[in-house]
């Protein structure tokens, strides 16, 4: 019924697990723990990695992530690394704040726990770094952690201005399977935002988890059509199933309009012709149809 040729102002994320801020530093020779960042002459070297297109435009929201240290020699404090396919694997660590911020002492007062990782080229030397070994359990043994694939973030639009992509009617995108992090779509009079569905069965998903479905499939020399002909569903985040209330208690209603096949939520519906928001309405009624309460969502 409704098929839209893709019209995008937003970003797409390729199938993956972890985002790197790809401002990587390297060292040619193995170093001691305290000299991991610098060569003996106190100079730094930048690794030539190209998967940085969304991150090298300056300080905008695509540059989110965490600065990490990377070099081409293993770190002595790591007990064991896995066997690599590449002859030139990368070795690094990234600090994470595991204790939260100390009030009044700055943003990074506790950001000191190192998590070590290694990046491999699963197809062989020189074929591209695409496999991440990350010491998630912090036991200094990278052989025991699940293998991760790297995220690639792609910004779609004419250009990025103040952290937002300006819309474009068409754009060439690297081949791959994507999940939208945010699309704004115009369809006739309707304008809407398409976002990942963050709920599952009424529960909020872990935002750190990868998308469940990669509904955007870019293939060589074929235009992609974002297909909205699937039957939409309304997913209730609240009230919970089998909720029981007493008179005087608050009934909270929150729902999402979702495309279960694309695993996206449609929000911010706006009628451009009438210039009005199309907020979903809520009606609470008895089984005989008598209205008890009504309003717009979020309700309650």
């Amino acid at each position: 019924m409704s098929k839209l040729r893709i019209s995008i102002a937003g970003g797409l994320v390729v199938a993956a697990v972890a985002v790197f801020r790809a401002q990587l530093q390297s060292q040619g020779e193995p170093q001691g723990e305290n000299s991991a960042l610098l060569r003996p002459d106190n100079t730094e070297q930048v690794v030539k990695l190209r998967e940085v297109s969304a991150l090298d435009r300056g300080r905008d929201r695509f540059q989110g992530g965490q600065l990490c240290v990377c070099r081409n020699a293993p770190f002595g404090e790591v007990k064991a690394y896995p066997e690599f396919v590449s002859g030139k694997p990368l070795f690094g660590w990234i600090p994470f704040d595991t204790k939260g911020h100390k009030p009044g002492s700055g943003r990074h007062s506790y950001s000191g726990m190192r998590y070590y990782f290694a990046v491999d080229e699963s197809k062989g030397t020189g074929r591209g770094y695409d496999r991440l070994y990350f010491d998630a359990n912090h036991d200094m043994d990278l052989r025991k952690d699940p293998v991760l694939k790297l995220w690639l973030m792609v910004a779609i639009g004419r250009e990025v201005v103040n952290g937002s992509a300006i819309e474009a009617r068409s754009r060439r995108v690297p081949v791959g399977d994507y999940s939208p992090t945010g699309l704004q779509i115009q369809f006739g009079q309707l304008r809407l935002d398409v976002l990942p569905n963050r709920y599952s069965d009424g529960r909020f998903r872990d935002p750190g988890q990868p998308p469940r479905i990669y509904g955007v499939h870019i293939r060589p020399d074929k235009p992609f059509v974002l297909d909205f002909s699937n039957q939409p569903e309304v997913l209730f985040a609240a009230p919970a199933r089998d909720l029981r209330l007493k008179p005087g208690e608050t009934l909270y209603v929150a729902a999402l309009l979702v495309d279960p096949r694309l695993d996206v939520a449609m929000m911010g519906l706006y009628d451009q012709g009438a210039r009005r928001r199309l907020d979903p309405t809520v009606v609470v009624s008895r089984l005989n149809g008598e209205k008890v309460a009504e309003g717009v969502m979020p309700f309650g």
Partner: protein
Amino acid sequence: MPNDLKISGNQETLNVQVHYDTLELYGKVDATRPVTICRQ
């Protein structure tokens, strides 16, 4: 729920209906979820 809500019997089931107007995309979309109002 209103404090003065009168319910029939010890409990009554109410329907919570959410209504979306998506214009020409999907048209009007409705969904209903029952909730139970009880005296105790």
